[in-house]
């Protein structure tokens, strides 16, 4: 069974009095361990799709099942628990809590999960080491570069052992070298830990790294291709 299964998902937004159909019936399945990029131009619906998979937004119609949890029957509280325990997020910007240090940011999700303090610290520091931020545990986000901040965000997303990590334009504010480093790290996480990554992007760099490309155009899947190994 697919880790993520979306059937005929539709979503419409209102901009003032104008109705804007963001998704016009998207069906998508992602297997465990996938490294998938949802690509398309701005306004194509890729971020909307990602938000719906992540439980940040609710589809108007259609079915969304993530890790055997059908979103249709879930309350807001259950969705919050889903995001906390099963899904990791990496956003384009403003990923980190400004007043917490790097290690505290990574610990934060574990804190919400109720992990004891000693274990939180141990896992958080180990994860920061893994993403290449040894010795920078106590730096605040304002003291880290953009790339380092994204690495902390990835560490936070993965440390709680989620089923999937959803990354929305993670390289948008990074230069190509930094972006490449970040993607290499994420690919390594995917391969080593078997964490499923789904990206929303229009960055060629991300598309190069992805093993599967789902092109979304005007709210529909235009093309779905797996790269040859």
């Amino acid at each position: 069974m697919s880790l993520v299964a979306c059937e005929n998902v539709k979503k419409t937004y209102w901009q003032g009095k104008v109705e804007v159909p963001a998704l016009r019936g998207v069906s998508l399945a992602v297997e465990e361990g996938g490294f998938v990029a949802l690509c398309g131009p701005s306004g194509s619906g890729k971020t909307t799709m990602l938000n719906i998979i992540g439980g940040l937004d609710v589809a108007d119609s259609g079915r969304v099942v993530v890790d055997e949890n059908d979103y249709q029957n879930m309350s807001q509280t259950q969705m919050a628990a889903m995001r906390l325990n099963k899904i990791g997020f990496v956003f384009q910007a403003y990923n980190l809590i400004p007043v917490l240090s790097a290690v505290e940011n990574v610990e934060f999700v574990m804190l919400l999960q109720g992990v004891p303090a000693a274990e939180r610290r141990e896992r958080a520091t180990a994860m920061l080491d893994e993403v290449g931020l040894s010795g920078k545990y106590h730096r605040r986000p304002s003291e880290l570069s953009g790339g380092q901040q994204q690495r902390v965000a990835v560490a936070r997303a993965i440390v709680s052992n989620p089923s999937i990590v959803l990354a929305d334009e993670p390289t948008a504010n990074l230069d190509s070298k930094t972006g490449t480093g970040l993607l290499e790290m994420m690919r390594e996480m995917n391969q080593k830990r078997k964490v499923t990554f789904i990206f929303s992007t229009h960055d060629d760099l991300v598309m190069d790294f992805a093993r599967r490309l789902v092109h979304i155009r005007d709210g529909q899947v235009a093309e779905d291709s797996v790269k040859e190994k």
Partner: protein
Amino acid sequence: MFCIMAWRNIWRNTRRTAVILTAIVIGVWSMILLGSLMRGMLTTMVENGIATLTGHVQVHAKGYRADPVIENSMTSPGRAEAAVNKLLPPGGHWTARVRVNAVASNARHASGVTLVGIDPAKEAKVSFIGRAVNKGRYLKPEDKYGVVVGKALLDKFETRLGHKLVVMSQDTTKQIASRAFTIVGVFRADLEATEKEFIFITMPAAQDMLKLKDGVSEIAVLLPKEDGVAAFAQGLSSALPGSYEVQTWQELQPMLEAYLSIFNGFIAIWNLVIFIAMAFGIVNTTLMAVYERIREFGLLKALGMKPRWIVQEVLTQSLFLLLLGMALGNLLAWLSIRALSGGIDLSAFAAGAEYFGMSRVIFPEIAAGDVVLANVVVFFLGLLVSAYPALKASRFTPVKALAHN
């Protein structure tokens, strides 16, 4: 970690935090300081009222209060004195007085006064007169023709120590009684009106002049504690027959009692006004802080933080601000009250102050209840008004919040 987040978030914008802290500090400080000044005013008003021959409780013959003439005196005060002695708690004192309206005159002036015949030793323990004589001397029990007058009366009559003062009144035979006294002492009082109104002679001198024999006009009692007054009066009233009247100082000075109610109400209104002004500041500033963190709240919700935890985090921020502000406000109030412990001189407003029975110097007085009330009001209402921004923060949807510019 929520506490750590809340504490650190307070200092993200130090200027804004300073503004809101200033509002809380000033609010708490002004509530306590003004409360202490008003309490001090009230205390001096009550103390002046009680010390100015009122005492905590008085006993009269029935009808005396309605018509305080010499004929309505207690002709045989022994029973009342015995009852007072029996019920008097340790630390309490009592004295008997003769009190009549009279006219005092000398070669230059004449004025209506209240002639008070006292037992000097007992009176000194009950009213102000024992410590108020600052020129000449206090009355001695054997003084037949000595009188102690107020400084203001002395000045008004353009006379001085050692000179004569003729006192005239009506005696028990309804004849004019008149006697010349020698001014042996001059007293000062907080109120100039007191200095002009009362003249003191010994009780035997008064009884002799007025042909009162052993009669007295009143028995005044000073109790060790304010809160025992009502019970004492009730007990005394029950112990005495219906030919006597027992009144508390509140009944004897209804105007003073009314002032107390007004002041207490004023303190409550003042606290409310201060708090409302402060509350707008707290709500406004906390709301600004919340809106600045919209994206952060979106992130927190996206990560799975429950709405009630977001409410808790924002309220914890307010809690820290309130506690810090309250601590500083209390400290500032304490320092201010210490600095003013020597009193605030209201001589410039003497006429107005005297109208209310206040002395010329006000000493701030901290009442534990006022301090507790100020802090409790600020704390709980401060948290209450912070609930709105906190709830606002918890209701941001992650998608909209993260997309907020």
